[in-house]
């Protein structure tokens, strides 16, 4: 009788300790995990129209690299009117074609090709022709083209970012 009593009490204590431990650790783990995971929530970028200089500053057949200036938020920091990203602009008559200067392979900055027209990424040797089409190297897709419009002589670019390294052009936040 006394022995049974003691065993029961031990068992109850063990259950209590385990259950209490699980509840306590869970209570700690859930908010901590949510806290750590918070930046992992992704979403498609809204895109925004950013001015990229005057149309008459662009010359036909001559790609020009332009820095887009707008407000930039990084966690708690809001920087007013800083360089947000670079695009390559190419004038075609009164219209302008634009490509993101970020390599679709792994995100290095794409420059002009050292040999002839076109673009080239210095990191893994991806090469693109003058229309942004993939020529050689590891890039899985063409340069990412961006929408443009010209308003009162000023070129506007719909600036977006895309996921790197994929064959498809998936927008990221």
């Amino acid at each position, binding site marked *: 009788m006394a022995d049974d009593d003691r065993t029961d009490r031990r068992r109850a204590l063990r259950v209590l300790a385990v259950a209490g431990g699980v509840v306590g650790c869970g209570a700690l783990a859930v908010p901590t995990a949510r806290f750590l995971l918070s930046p992992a929530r992704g979403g498609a970028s809204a895109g925004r129209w950013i001015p990229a200089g005057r149309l008459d500053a662009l010359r036909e057949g001559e790609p020009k690299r332009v820095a887009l200036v707008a407000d930039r938020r*990084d966690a708690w920091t809001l920087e007013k009117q800083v360089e947000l990203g670079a695009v390559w602009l190419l004038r075609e008559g009164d219209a302008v074609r634009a490509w993101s200067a970020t390599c679709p392979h792994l995100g290095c900055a794409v420059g002009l090709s050292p040999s002839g027209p076109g673009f080239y990424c210095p990191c893994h040797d991806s090469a693109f022709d003058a229309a942004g089409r993939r020529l050689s190297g590891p890039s899985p897709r063409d340069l990412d083209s961006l929408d443009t419009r010209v308003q009162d002589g000023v070129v506007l670019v719909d600036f977006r970012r895309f996921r790197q390294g994929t064959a498809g052009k998936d927008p990221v936040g």
Partner: protein
Amino acid sequence: MGALERIGEWLDERTGWRGALREATEHPVAGGPSWASAMAAAVAACFGVLALTGVALMTTYEPSPQSAWASVFYVQFVQDRGWIVRGLHHWAAQGLVALAALQVVHGAWAGGYRKPREVAWWLTLLLVALAVGEGITGGLLPWDQRGWWARVVEGNILGLAPAVGGWLQRMMQGGPELGAIGLARAYTMHVALLPVAIALVLAARRRLARRAGWGGGAATGPWAQQVARSVLVALFVVVAVFAATGWTRGAPLDAPADPMSDYPARPEWFLLTLFELRKLCHGAGELWGTTLAPLAVAGYLALLPWIDRAGRPRALTVKLPLAAIVAGALALAVLPLRKDARDARYAKQRAGADALAAAAVKLAMQGVPPEGALAMMRHDPELRGEALFEQHCASCHVLGDAGDARKATAAKLDGWGTPGWIAAMIHDPDAPQFFGRGPYAEEMPSVDVRPAKKPADEPWSPTIASEAEKRAVAMFLAAQGDEPGDPPRAVDAATRALGEKIVSERCTTCHLYGGQGDDDGSGIAPELRGYGSVAWTRAQVADPATARTYRDQALDPKRKKHMPRFDGDLSAADVDLVARWTRAHARGVPLR
């Protein structure tokens, strides 16, 4: 019994520290003393140096995008013995990765994975991964170009992982882009999670080695011999780390991370093999070459205890594959180094990056603003002026290294406004380095050469014939652009008066001088008063058609490739800056 001994005795009675010390230092070594077990001491020595210098660095370093580069700069270039502490940390880190990898190669070759040492073997493999993780997270902390770009690329590689890639990438970067939270996460991993994991692995390996030895040595002998060997090897490692630090004066620091720059990103040396594989394998082969092949090597090493079985020829199952892996990895790592060494374009980009790093250090010596090192670079007149010229002027003009002389359609600006430039220009305005390839070709006649198109029977006389007159005009016009603070110009009053007389009487047929002139009303030739001054240059950049420089014809669409106005594209401050920068570099005077 001395006082010290009595204190020791008192403590031992309550803590048993003497026994613990004896246990730690005099425990018999299973398998006997060997150089293989001394290698573990070398790894531990590296880790010890890293822990000590790491904690020291933490007392100065500040992990935020605004402060990280500046605080590392401070350690490297300002703080007393900072370069030594940082250099020791840098070189001990290289040593940790190299020695851990060497232990794996040695263990595989010597059969150190055999029963009962499988778990210790896996811990050694894990150690390599943890050391590489420390290298990757540590490389980001200076927030310089080298580390930042390498991590951007590696973040995107992480993002390629099936299913969880995008999630993993955002977890590591702290969001869709590498920013403040990503840096804080790398820092947390670098100074807390990974070092604790390494310490646990090293402690566990040591315990396991106590049971079964390190493998690779069969001789038995006293433990004291092992301690002597271990201390010797550890000492050698520390001396080597000091020597490397002294040789390189600390550790490299590139310019502050600039997401807008063209930077030829390269990974750390221990990732060069994977880097080259990524360049070689693309399309369908990318997954195989860059992910599955390295995973296969890791899996092969982890499974060695079962691959190497009695009855199978060890030369075929272990030694040959191991030799192939090591040779292949080394060859692939050397390939990109050799390629870069022969690549003139890479050399140029690298030289540019080095020059920028030197400029950043020079600027930071005067103090970094609270907005951070990148803002410091952006606001520096010299660097900002150069960047503006590169972006807005160099597609037509050439000045110094900026612009391409083969494609230029406007005047080469080296020397623009100096006596030599003016003298050469008025003699041959249509030379390619002056106006010959631009919208004003064949508009200005030479002052002393008969125009080729002029019929032979028409009378012609030079506008300025004598060398003395030409010199006077050149000196007078050059002085128009002088500003307070420029080096003084030695022009005597007579030369100046002669120059002014010629300019105001003979050049004003077409040019304006103080708003007067252009007798035949062509509306093309520019104002000469103040030619080459800051005000003139600024007015020309803002809008060439105000008559303060050129006139309304300057923006005539029929005048192909004419200079555009920049007051719409650039802020007034940027117009002023690029004008002052261009003028200063053209004339070779200080920028102010």
